[in-house]
């Protein structure tokens, strides 16, 4: 019985077979108002679309085509709005096709305030670090 339950739990936790699509929210958390960011994201699958996040980063961010390779992408966006977010803010949503174990790594390569100065910030996928 215990073995059966363990098998069931294992099957339930296993990623579904075959390719599947999902979205990956991208969040940047900064102590001061965020005017621009750049992140490098690596996923186990293929990125099939890039959507904006919450205002003022609701427009689809740009990506660098020269750096696009497999599941790796470099995203960047800026805002000239006067009301800029501080704290945790969803800046983008990735649309990906995955197969096998989901895996996503993210690295914040730049974050700046309205004057272009670097700000202390961190990036993560999902709503929580």
């Amino acid at each position, binding site marked *: 019985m215990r073995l059966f339950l363990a098998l069931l739990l294992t099957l339930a936790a296993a990623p579904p077979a075959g*390719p*599947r*699509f*999902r*979205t990956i929210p991208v969040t940047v958390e900064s102590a001061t108002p965020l*005017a*621009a960011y*750049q992140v*490098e994201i690596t996923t186990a699958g*293929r*990125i*099939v*679309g*890039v*959507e*904006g996040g919450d205002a003022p980063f609701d*427009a*689809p*961010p*740009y*990506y*660098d*085509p*020269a*750096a*696009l*390779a*497999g599941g*790796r*992408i*470099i995203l*960047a*966006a*800026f805002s*000239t709005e006067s009301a800029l977010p501080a704290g945790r803010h969803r800046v983008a949503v990735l*649309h*990906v*096709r995955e197969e096998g174990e989901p895996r996503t790594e993210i690295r914040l*390569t*730049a974050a*700046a305030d*309205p*004057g*272009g100065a670097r700000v202390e910030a961190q990036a993560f996928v999902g709503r929580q670090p």
Partner: protein
Amino acid sequence: MRKLLIPALLVAACTKDAAPPQSPLASAPPRAADRDHDGIADEDGDENALEPPEATEAPRHRAVAASPPRDTATRPRPDLRARGPSVDEVWILARAPRAAATEPRVAPGLRAEVEGREVPLPLARTDVRAKISGFLATVEVRQRYDNPYDRKIDVEYVFPLPANAAVSEFIMTVGARRIRGIVRERAEAEELYREARRQGYVASLLTEERPNVFTQKVANIEPGKQIDIALTYDNTLPWEDGAFTFAFPTVVGPRYNRAGSRDGVGAAQRGSAGASGQPTEVTYLAPDETSRHRVSFTIELDAGAPLVAVDSATHALDQKIVSDHVRRIAVADAAPDRDLVLRYRVASRPAVFVHQGADGATSFALLLPPPADLRQLARAPVEMVFVVDCSGSMDGLPIAVAKRAVRQQLARLGPADTFQIIQFSMDASALGRAPVPATPDNVARGLAYLASLRGEGGTEMITGIRAALDFSPDPQRLRVVSFLTDGYIGDERDILAAVAAKVGSARLFSFGVGTAVNRYLLEKMAAFGRGAVAFVDLGERAPEEAAALFYERVSHPALADVSVDWGAWQVSDVYPERIPDLMVGRPIVVVGRARGPLPASVEVRGVVGGRRVSYKVPLGPAAEHPALAKLWARARVGHLADAALLARDPAAIVEEVKRVALTHGLLSAYTAFIAVDATEPTGGGTAPIVPVSVPVPRGVNAEKSVPR
């Protein structure tokens, strides 16, 4: 300050570790696409292309499963049944309210003003927003798709863009959400699209079938839902005879494919999807049918110099003068049955645009004029060969216009010239066995022969090329081929390769006759033929004006063997790689990359009538334009595509096209844009495909150009 921040950030992060994109899925040849060998749309191998063959009177058009109509048995797509009994063949049976058909309000041969039966189609409108700076245009094309049926559908739309368009942005809007598409190797993008479609996700795929023919696919549009696709391109605009031209095509004309062709662009009637047997196929509305699809234009024109005139022979323009060099132009709700052609004259031509990239290199676009004194030189005697396309698509007004253009040209021949007239459709024939002197009697004979020509049959263009270029050259005269056609052929490669192989010392001038001609073919024929292209619309004065400009060009020698001394400017990778001859009234745009400060001028050198000449072209203050790196990349892709046309083994060239296109995020024959909304799948299984049927171009005889 802020606007510069992100590009700078990107550069810092990308220059060091930008790995060449890898594509584990990509190895299939281009255009293998997602149609099988018999041309049937076959994303998953379990359904066929679907069209609304009939209309119903229901306000919401009903999509039902039904048996195919009886005439399907005669269509050349029987393999559909061979796939077994599980084939779920679905036909949309729908009928829009019938409007009373009226007679055409325009001259015989023109049919677009017919208020015929409106056919329900999923493409509602196209909005074109262009920003023109000098001779560079940035154009956003927004297509609005919706689903007028009661079950979800997929859409396929084959549409044109300018052949030199550098398509670099693609955004799919689903409700309030905008999803930026990703450029990937074509085979990989096609596989991702197929998978998303199969799983029920809203997805879109943009592919290039020819440099000027594209396919937009949108999967899983639910009933009542709307999806916008916005693509953005940049291109350079030509200067021709005193004016810049902005041309935007709205429809792909019905193309003829040679027997046995399996890589063409086919034409079929609405309701007969797959009938052409070609991997890319345009379906056409019947002459008594219309659709609600309309195209609107908003053009912000900043010429960079005082504007002398802005006009269009094809559309009525709503113009607002903003300043002496800026106009806002609008065209609302135009029928998608002809090119929009806008011409603007400026007091002084801009010379050069530049953009400095992150690596310190400058991309530039330079307008290179011919020498000012070419008009003072007379031409040598010519052997003029007129070639008239007499295929079915030229029947009616197009062939009448072509004949008038030839008449005008015949009348201007001198006594030392000779001429020949060749007609072709399924085969070629000529006025005589050899060119004859342009005596009044011979010209009269030529005019009588010309009057006897009719438009009928297919477009075996290769026979016209051979007839014009295969016979022995006259050592006393320069052969000038004047080739008049709409260019409606499905596979341009054979023609261009033949022109390149056979042109020798002759010059080929191509004339695109019609309202929506195959500009790519005509421009390339002229480029490979070392001549020039002209477009002759079906307007009242068009043939005479085109003939006059043609004669202006061939009446004076061109500057040949052109080279440019860039001085201290370290220039590389200039396209066109071999600068074509510079003719009266025809400056050309060259793009390239350079390092170092922009010089005050460059020196152009060449040969005119056996005499070496050189002259300086002042560059003046350069204007900045951010699209120049993409335009350079597009020019390189075009150069490579030309090389691939003539190469025995183009594999290495194809790889370089992919590399350039992926690095710059460009659409090409081997790269494609994919966008998937992975939020949640739609329900209801796989959707049937609805091709977007289009009208035949204005002035084209549908009965003789679209196979029944």
